[in-house]
């Protein structure tokens, strides 16, 4: 019997309903029965950090269907349209299927042996001539845990360089340094259950409706069920999130720093803080100020934290009066007072949510600290339904990049290369001489590509990411890659991209369910999947590629595995005890994900909270036990307002902000190959406020030219308001490979996190 697609989906919807009702596996079996020879497997979605569960249907070795997994706690069978079309994502016509080597102007097909021989030779040559720090790997928050671990082990424990960075440096680094400086441990204390259990939600510079669609759906349902729920959207741009929020509060770019201090100021002024909580669970610190913007090559910054008293902190807050903050931010005094009152309201369960507005910020670390300050002052933290929740953009920025530690300064499980004890532990588990692991971090992402431009790095291997579309001040780095003189760029990807086009070698890769995998989402949920189909042509998975290079460089002994994925995972797991505990691999193969710390067969919903986190002892209530230096207390940081790296001026009078839309993900290499998603949203446009447009004589659909000090771009103007820029602002999404808006962006970064500010630079806008 052949069910057509409509009937199948109808049956599965009904079956899913039944499954939800009975709580049994019946739903899936019914669909299987209906479909006969389709085999179903579970996997997390390939796209955002929400980590929706999907079921992938395979028949005759091909993916024939995908649907939301009704048994996945994250999404219960729902998807956004990106997830809905997962079955199409891997089937674009121009899938890379053969290694390609640059010969003059052409990319010529080659065998794997040829390509890997060449790559290994280039690595060896550069290491011999210029040292191990002349080679680098740039990976991704879309790497599986196995891939990230193997890369880190090879480069740090084999080659002996800290030249490994993930693209997560460009999206979550500030969240990480925020966590590390406040709590001494990365990753949220809360989980998605907080979306169901709280009653007050502050969204800060996050277009959740479009960028975390299924989570937003969950949040709105909370409000539908509980009319008491308030959702307040702080933004520099009016979005679909603003439209559904109870209140949209617009503020001038960068002034989030002042607003958060202003809220703290009022809480201190009115004594609505939780004195007892502060005494038991917080210390106060200050760091350096006027810390710069990272615009110069090799910019270095080291903070100098000093303890201060609560009184000194109150002194620090004195200038952030509602009047001062209002003047700076454009938010009315009454609104600031109202927000502070809401944050401190003892009858309310308050949550803060944020993503790139806070993280892609020249003071990203500071603004993360400041939002934690408010929750620590009021004691609204580590309680079910009451947490600050950092939302993540990529499917495994948490699970791979951050937790495995694929950064220049990192080792797995919060550990750092600068700490001799951490290096010793890594050396022991990896089975290498501890002297191999370098103790000095080298370059974070932006500096890595500056080094390539200068020639201090010669060989870069890019995997599962598209830096030559996504880096800020893009022109410099695209040109840098093609300067020759010994430079050699390898790009592993599944489609031709703006990065493969500057490569010397292109390696065709397997994607998603074409390999066994493991991702970790924003709520500490690790999700595993089995390989379900073969990759096309001669494509091979990135893990195989890394190990193959290792063998050819003489480090094959570091990868003596038979069942590679499982053995790597179990080896990595050894790092994770004491608060980041992962479950045995077997457990993940059966579960719809598990949230760490996983201890004695139980996952943890709320970290640092008694009764939920097994590392918190009875009677402790809340304990930030990872911060041993401060006795298990969290840090409230005195961080001031400081202006953006480049603000509008007479010559460049507009703010440029960049970001995403629901229909496309990141640089659009996958979603751009789904015809339906292209139909829904084809090209990047320039959002402009209608009054600004009128002044310049720009009409809907007319052409505008945006120019910054670094580049210019002609775009179609969109005044329809799906995203409505405030006056004096423009917004452009970065998914379009034909509209490289990042050429205009400034490569200024947070000196502490290294994360560039994609949300603020100065442009001029002209009618074309």
């Amino acid at each position, binding site marked *: 019997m052949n069910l057509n697609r*409509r009937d199948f989906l*109808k049956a599965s*919807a009904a079956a*899913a*309903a039944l499954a*939800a009702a009975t709580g049994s596996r019946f739903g899936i079996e019914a669909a299987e029965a209906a479909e006969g020879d389709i085999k179903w497997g579970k996997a997390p979605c390939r796209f955002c950090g929400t980590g929706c569960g999907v079921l992938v249907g395979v028949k005759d070795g091909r993916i024939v269907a995908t649907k*939301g997994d009704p048994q996945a706690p994250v*999404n*219960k*069978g*729902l*998807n*956004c*349209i990106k997830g*809905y*079309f997962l079955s199409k994502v891997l089937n674009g016509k121009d899938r890379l299927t053969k290694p390609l080597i640059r010969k003059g102007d052409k990319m010529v097909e080659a065998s794997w042996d040829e390509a890997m021989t060449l790559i290994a030779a280039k690595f060896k040559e550069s290491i011999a001539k210029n040292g191990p720090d002349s080679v680098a790997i740039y990976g991704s928050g879309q790497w599986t845990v196995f891939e990230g671990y193997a890369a880190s082990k090879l480069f740090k424990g084999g080659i002996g360089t800290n030249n490994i960075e993930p693209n997560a440096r460009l999206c979550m680094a500030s969240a990480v340094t925020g966590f590390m400086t406040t709590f001494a441990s990365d990753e949220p204390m809360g989980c998605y259950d907080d979306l*169901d259990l709280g009653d007050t939600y502050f969204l800060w510079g996050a277009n959740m409706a479009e960028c975390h*669609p*299924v989570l*937003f*759906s*969950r949040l*709105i*349902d*909370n409000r*539908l*069920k509980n009319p008491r729920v308030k959702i307040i959207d702080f933004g520099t741009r009016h979005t*679909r999130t603003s*439209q*559904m929020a109870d209140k949209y509060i617009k503020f001038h770019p960068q002034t989030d720093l002042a607003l958060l201090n202003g809220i703290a100021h009022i809480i201190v002024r009115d004594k609505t803080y939780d004195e007892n909580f502060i005494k038991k669970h917080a210390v106060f610190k200050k760091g350096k100020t006027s810390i710069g913007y990272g615009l110069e090559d090799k910019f270095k910054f080291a903070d100098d934290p000093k303890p201060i008293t609560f009184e000194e902190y109150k002194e620090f807050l004195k200038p952030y009066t509602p009047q001062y903050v209002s003047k700076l931010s454009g938010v009315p005094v009454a609104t600031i007072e109202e927000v502070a009152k809401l944050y401190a309201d003892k009858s309310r369960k308050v949550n803060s949510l944020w993503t790139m507005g806070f993280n892609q910020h020249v003071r990203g670390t500071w603004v993360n600290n400041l939002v934690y300050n408010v929750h620590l002052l009021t004691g609204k933290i580590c309680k079910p339904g009451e947490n600050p929740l950092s939302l993540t953009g990529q499917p495994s920025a948490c699970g791979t990049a951050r937790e495995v530690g694929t950064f220049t300064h990192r080792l797995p499980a919060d550990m750092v290369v600068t700490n001799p004890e951490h290096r010793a532990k890594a050396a022991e588990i990896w089975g290498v001489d501890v002297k191999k692991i370098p103790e000095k971090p080298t370059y974070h992402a932006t500096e890595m590509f500056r080094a390539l431009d200068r020639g201090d790095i010669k060989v870069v291997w890019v995997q599962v990411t598209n830096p030559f579309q996504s880096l800020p001040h893009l022109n410099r780095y695209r040109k840098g890659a093609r300067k020759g003189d010994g430079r050699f760029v390898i790009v592993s990807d599944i489609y031709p991209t703006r990065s493969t086009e500057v490569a010397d070698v292109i390696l065709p890769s397997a994607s998603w369910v074409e390999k066994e995998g493991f991702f970790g989402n924003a709520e500490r949920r690790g999700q595993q999947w089995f390989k379900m189909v073969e990759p096309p042509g001669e494509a091979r998975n990135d893990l195989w590629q890394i190990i193959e290079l290792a063998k050819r460089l003489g480090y094959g002994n570091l990868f003596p595995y038979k069942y590679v994925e499982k053995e790597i995972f179990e080896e990595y797991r050894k790092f994770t005890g004491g608060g980041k505990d992962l479950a045995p691999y077997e457990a993940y193969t059966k579960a719809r994900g598990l949230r760490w710390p996983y201890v004695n067969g139980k996952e943890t919903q709320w970290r640092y909270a008694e009764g939920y986190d097994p590392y918190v002892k009875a009677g402790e209530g809340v304990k930030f036990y990872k911060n041993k230096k401060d006795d298990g207390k969290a840090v409230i940081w005195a961080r001031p307002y400081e202006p953006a790296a480049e603000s509008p001026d007479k010559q460049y009078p507009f703010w440029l902000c960049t970001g995403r839309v*629901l*229909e496309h993900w990141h640089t659009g290499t996958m979603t751009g190959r789904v*015809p*339906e*998603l292209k*139909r*829904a*949203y084809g090209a990047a446009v320039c959002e402009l406020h209608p009054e600004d447009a009128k002044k310049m004589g720009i*009409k*809907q*659909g007319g052409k505008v030219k945006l120019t910054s000090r670094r580049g210019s771009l002609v775009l179609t103007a969109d005044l*329809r*308001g*799906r995203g409505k820029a405030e006056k004096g602002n423009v917004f452009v999404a970065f998914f379009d490979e034909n509209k490289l808006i990042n050429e205009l962006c400034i490569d200024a970064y947070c000196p502490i996190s290294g994360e560039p500010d994609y949300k603020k630079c100065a442009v001029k806008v002209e009618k074309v």
Partner: protein
Amino acid sequence: MGSKSQDIVSRRQFLQSGAVAPLAAVLAVGMISIPFMRLAEAGGFMLRPPGALDEKRFLGACVKCGKCAQACPYKAIKMAGPSYGASLGTPYIIAREEPCQLCPELPCAKACPSGALDKGLDDIEKVRMGTAIIVDRENCLSIRGLRCEVCYRNCPLLDKAITIEARHNERTGSHTIMEPVVHRDKCVGCGICEKSCVREQAVIVVQKSPLLQKDSYEF
């Protein structure tokens, strides 16, 4: 995709249908078969350019000059072929392929020499080319609870012609169904929603506007 609307019979289909022989005879005397003549009037809705008179008067006024099609900067206006019977040579829009983009200056209407398109129309939001209707709720991803709402986000009269009505998803118990709802009094019938729909067959299509009904009666 390139699928034409259902009521166009392709040339090949027509020739293969076996209707050629008797029809050839009919055509030879310059008469056109009755079913085709009544195509537009029988509810085989044709999406006319903005500012068009009601269909009966439009067919009388349109001189089939093609100036509106030439004026359209998006090439959205097409000229109807022979299978359209009495509509032969008249302008229409296939929303699924290229919808009307609602140019504020209405170049198409301004170009019309016969008044078939109202030249005096100055507010694009006042046109009523048709009304968008969700014709297949079971295949609408938004109504199923997935996060789509592409039609809503692309609608040029954002939050006016289509709004989102949120309701609890009974099946999951913890998510929202965000249903796009068309407001007949605001929808201009441009068809941008129909073009945007991510399903293979658009589940939201522009159809002939339903009658605007009042709740009071004259006795």
